């Protein structure tokens, strides 16, 4: 078991955004978390990545409890994430964004930076090599020295995945990786996610609204509604689950 969430609850002024959610993420899978707007999916990601503190419940990463840890500690422990509204360092260039993502894997501190020690050199070379590798992995090699603000929406989405990916995380949380993209761009991101899963061997957990894409991509799905898990299973099982159909469409099949 890679990640285990037990009885997780998050209240905002009495409103339970996530209530008593328990779920497990298995090593090496693609898990999709779906549900109508306001179901608590993003809040759940916020809790796992440490941005929000749970009201109750525990989170374990490979058996170690990480509940209440600061986001940077959780990130260093191997959980990377992207944001729903694409978050990037928009004052900086593409390469800088990736280098910042890799910073947690470097060890040089203040003095080695000041004195340009061998460790500093090694960090620099390692970072450069890794940035180059990720650039070609996400297909942005030609845009390496462009500023983020000049990239298209789809390129920004790919870069944000790259920033999460470069730290070689154990799992990656993708919050609507194709939100706001047109169909071709969606397909491109889908194949990138597949590539992450297959070649990099990273566990993927994603929130997505585009049902066809999710059904195609995910091996397992968890459906949230009003902050609770209402269904769990393979895409096939989910698409025929009456509770899910009820929650989404009030009666009709979704796939």
């Amino acid at each position, binding site marked *: 078991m890679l990640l285990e969430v037990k009885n997780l609850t998050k209240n905002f002024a009495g409103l339970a955004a996530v209530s008593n959610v328990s779920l497990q993420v298995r090593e090496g899978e693609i898990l999709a978390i779906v549900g109508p707007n306001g179901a608590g999916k993003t809040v759940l990601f916020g809790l796992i990545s440490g941005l929000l503190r749970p009201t109750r419940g525990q989170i374990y990463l490979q058996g170690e409890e990480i509940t209440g840890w600061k986001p940077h500690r959780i990130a260093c422990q191997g959980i990377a994430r992207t944001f729903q509204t694409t*978050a990037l360092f928009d*004052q900086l260039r593409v390469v800088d964004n990736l280098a910042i993502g890799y910073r947690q894997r470097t060890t040089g501190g*203040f003095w080695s930076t000041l004195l340009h020690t061998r460790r500093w050199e090694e960090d620099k070379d390692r970072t450069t090599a890794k940035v180059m590798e990720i650039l070609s992995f996400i297909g942005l090699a030609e845009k390496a020295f462009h500023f983020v603000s000049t990239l298209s929406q789809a390129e920004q989405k790919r870069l944000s995945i790259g920033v999460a990916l470069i730290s070689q995380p154990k799992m990656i949380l993708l919050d609507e990786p194709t939100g706001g993209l047109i169909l071709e761009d969606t397909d491109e991101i889908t194949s990138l996610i597949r590539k992450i899963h297959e070649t990099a061997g990273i566990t993927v957990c994603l929130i997505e609204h585009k049902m066809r894409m999710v059904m195609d991509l995910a091996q397992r799905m968890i459906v949230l509604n009003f902050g609770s898990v209402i269904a769990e299973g393979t895409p096939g099982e989910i698409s025929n689950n009456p509770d899910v159909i009820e929650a989404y469409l009030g009666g009709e099949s979704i796939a």
Partner: protein
Amino acid sequence: MTWIKFLREKWFYALLLILALLLPLLITNRYHFQIVIMGCLFSIAALSLNLILGYTGQASMAHAGFFGIGAYGVALLTKEGMSFWLALPLSSLLAALVGFLIGLPTLRARGSYFAISTMCFGVIISIVAGNWIELTGGYNGVVGIPLPNPIFLPGVGDLGFQTQAAQYYLVLAFLLLTLLIMHRLVYSLMGLGFMAIRNNEVLAGSVGINTFAGKILSFVVANFFAGLAGGIYASLIGTISPATAALEQTFGWLIFVLLGGIATLTGPIVGAFVIPVIMEYLQFLTEYRLIIFGVLLIVVIIYFPRGLMGGFTTLQQRVKDLYAQRRGEKRAAGG
């Protein structure tokens, strides 16, 4: 080989350095020379403010307070007979330490809340300097602070700091040291980490950067150099008072950084030299000068968000683009 390559790429900076080293031969007017010395000193203060404000994005309004801690430290220690060369690092470290302690609570606040809370601490430091009479001499300040002790140079003998030229080389050396350290910090993964915090603190945390530690480090380093500048100031000027640590000083440096070019290494230095000169020429306007700077500040922030040097770089890029475009058109027309 590397030297030749270095000179080819950085000839402008090499030229500037030679000019700076020969400056005492070029300036004959004592008053102008003093302005240059103060320009170097305030460059150190502005550069360090730029680290926390420009690169890390945290608007510290206590900078003059730390300048004051360095100044009072050197003043009081050297008057007690300690060597300037020991008192200066000790006072700078004291400024850094106080910065660390003040940073612990204030750096938890964001944006304007950080600015306001540091402003309070800055004011407190200057009030303490004015009222802890037994230690600081109150609002009369400290007078008769000795000049830096002579240093022994092999082949030259003891070198004192009575002459303006010697004082100039002293501040120039410290300015170059500050510039070197800022350059190393900024052009590194650590500097990228600072800029990540400035740009998007939540995202920086999510990619594994300890944002609080980064802010503390930047703040402590900035305050060390503020203290350093203050210490040299006290020793060269010979008198200090609570006004040395006053908020107005911070605002002055803030203008240097903003007009000169925020988050550039050259901007604060350009600001520290150009703005006092402009101030000098506008002397006839007395207090109304500040209105002009107020308007200028608004214009610059709106139209040149990265100040004079940032605007200069953009202009350079535009010209280059235009040139490239022209050449492209010519080639197209020729072919």
